[in-house]
């Protein structure tokens, strides 16, 4: 295709991405370097016939004028990144110097909001992703041996947890595990602990969110693996059987190697998606015990005081996290493309 034709074909979509993805990134980076203006104070002398008093008031006009002139605020460099709400180098250094063993150090770090969000996001990502791959694989193998007519029905119901909005899905589960809901009451009865509430403890909240994550994403892994199983080479499987491989050995040495590229694919997609975990925290009302990076940004942006600078700094740090997570894929794609010529 000629350069010119290509240009006109790609223009609308490129423009949309440029204006609403690339520029906002630039704007987010810029905003993270600025902070709102402080209010301008002026000193007024009030004189009564007997004595003069000086009082400091906010100069509304001057403040307004300053904000008008420089809507971004004042330049503060990287200081927002380093403050207590984000990377908090000062606090980290202090915790390191006054540490009382590593446990204590990590405890102190865990009290800093950004690191707490980071810890949850990373544990969620790296616990949920392998679990959902295993569960998805097991479902795919089990469904594959079902009768043909049942398969469609099973796939239909399996798609539901994945297709509904994460917020709705998490609400549906949340109402069930609520201490008054059916599963919550069931758990209380099972463990004979009438005060058990999954919302009350950090550990249980994390487990609840991760169970939700597996429930939500396992269908994706299932569908992909199921499609992969349809292309399984029958002859290899047969020869393995003739050579006396047990069922487990067939799965271990024939099925899994065949599905390996798909496992990589699912893992990459799910790492990206789990890293942005956000809606379940709102749905499960879990912000007291678990905060993710996305929720952290959302929280800064919401409410009356929109903390744009702080949210921008967190956004930039999150984007960096995504970039690190994604770098193996990018390198691989680059190699593939080069080898293709």
């Amino acid at each position, binding site marked *: 295709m000629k350069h010119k034709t290509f240009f006109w074909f790609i223009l609308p979509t490129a423009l949309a991405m440029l204006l609403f993805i690339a520029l906002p990134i630039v704007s987010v980076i810029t*905003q993270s370097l600025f902070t709102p203006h402080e209010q301008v104070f002026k000193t007024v002398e009030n004189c009564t016939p007997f004595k003069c008093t000086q009082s400091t008031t906010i100069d509304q006009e001057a403040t307004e004028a300053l904000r008008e002139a420089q809507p971004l605020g004042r330049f503060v460099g990287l200081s927002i990144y380093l403050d207590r709400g984000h990377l908090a180098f000062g606090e980290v250094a202090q915790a390191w110097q006054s540490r009382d063993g590593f446990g204590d150090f990590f405890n102190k770090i865990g009290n800093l909001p950004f690191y707490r969000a980071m810890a949850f996001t990373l544990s969620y990502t790296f616990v949920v992703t392998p679990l959902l791959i295993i569960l998805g694989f097991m479902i795919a193998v*089990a469904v594959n041996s079902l009768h043909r007519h049942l398969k469609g029905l099973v796939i239909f119901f399996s798609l539901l947890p994945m297709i509904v909005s994460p917020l709705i899905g998490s609400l549906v589960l949340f109402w069930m595990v609520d201490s008054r809901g059916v599963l919550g009451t069931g758990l209380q009865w099972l463990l004979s602990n009438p005060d058990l509430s999954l919302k009350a403890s950090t550990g249980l909240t994390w487990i609840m969110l991760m169970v939700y994550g597996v429930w939500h994403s396992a269908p994706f892994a299932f569908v992909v693996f199921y499609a992969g199983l349809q292309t399984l080479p029958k002859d290899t499987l*047969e020869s393995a059987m003739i050579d006396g491989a047990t069922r487990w050995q067939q799965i271990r040495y024939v099925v899994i190697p065949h599905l390996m590229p798909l496992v990589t694919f699912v893992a990459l997609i799910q790492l990206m998606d789990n890293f942005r975990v956000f809606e379940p925290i709102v749905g499960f009302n879990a912000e007291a015990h678990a905060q993710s990076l996305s929720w952290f940004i959302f929280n800064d942006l919401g409410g009356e005081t929109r903390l744009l600078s702080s949210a921008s700094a967190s956004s930039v740090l999150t984007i960096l996290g995504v970039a690190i997570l994604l770098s193996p894929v990018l390198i691989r794609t680059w190699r593939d493309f080069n080898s293709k010529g």
Partner: protein
Amino acid sequence: MSSKAFKQPWTLRTASSVFVIAWLILAAFPFLWTLWGSFKVELDFFSKADWRNALTGARTMAEHGSSFTGNGYSGAWVQEEFWRAVFNTAIVCFFTVAISLTIGTLGGYALSRSSYRYTFWLLITALIFRAMPPITLVAGYLLPFFEWNLWGILPTTIVVLVAINQPFTLWMLHSFFQKIPKELDESAKVDGCTQFQAFRHVIIPVMWPGVITTGLFSFLLAYNDFAVTSMLLEKENQTMVPKIASFLGTTQTEGNVMFAVAAVVSATAPLFILVMFFQRQIVSGLTQGAVKG
């Protein structure tokens, strides 16, 4: 299982059937439970006293004289004006899908037919954009949108959702167009068509399966989005998902939880129907990216 050698022993068959049934219950039961419970009063849906109340609706019977009540629905749809949110969602979804498919098809087609190096860089950029959580961009939108008075209205949100949708749409359609043989449009060009005419008369008639699949996923993205819509829309213009989230803020008074339950069921129903009709396309769409794996 055609061959006898592949036949499983009955223990294994039973075990795998039990496993599938357990998974089915896990996947479907929460939705059925919520659907059933949405017609009850709060004390039945959250019945600490006896869980069977949620099934029989004892309290609902006592309060309304019948074991089913539409109170949650009327409260949500009429009193809390959920219909407005449904209407907004319909507008947002329709325009997002229409616009992103239109510009995505053009772009995806161009990417699949050009072999220059920049196509690779465009696709990689799209991949990076696809990986970024949408919420990280919102901080960048707010200031300009406030400044130019664009905040809170539906068109802004539609345009933003279209843009966020583009990376995915491009990848999907690009891999789909690559499967359409190049000879088709090349022969049209030999016959004197311009590139656009070749696209218009040769490619468009055969591209619908791929476009429908991509459209389904664009629809789901617009329908399910919470991060962008909750930040960029003002209260009257909210779509369903942020509206449901705002119900939650006011759940303390009795009865309001059931509004949220009813709203959740109302918002799930269209998706249910969608999966019923387009199951094949959704499955093929999910696996399409994997083929390239």
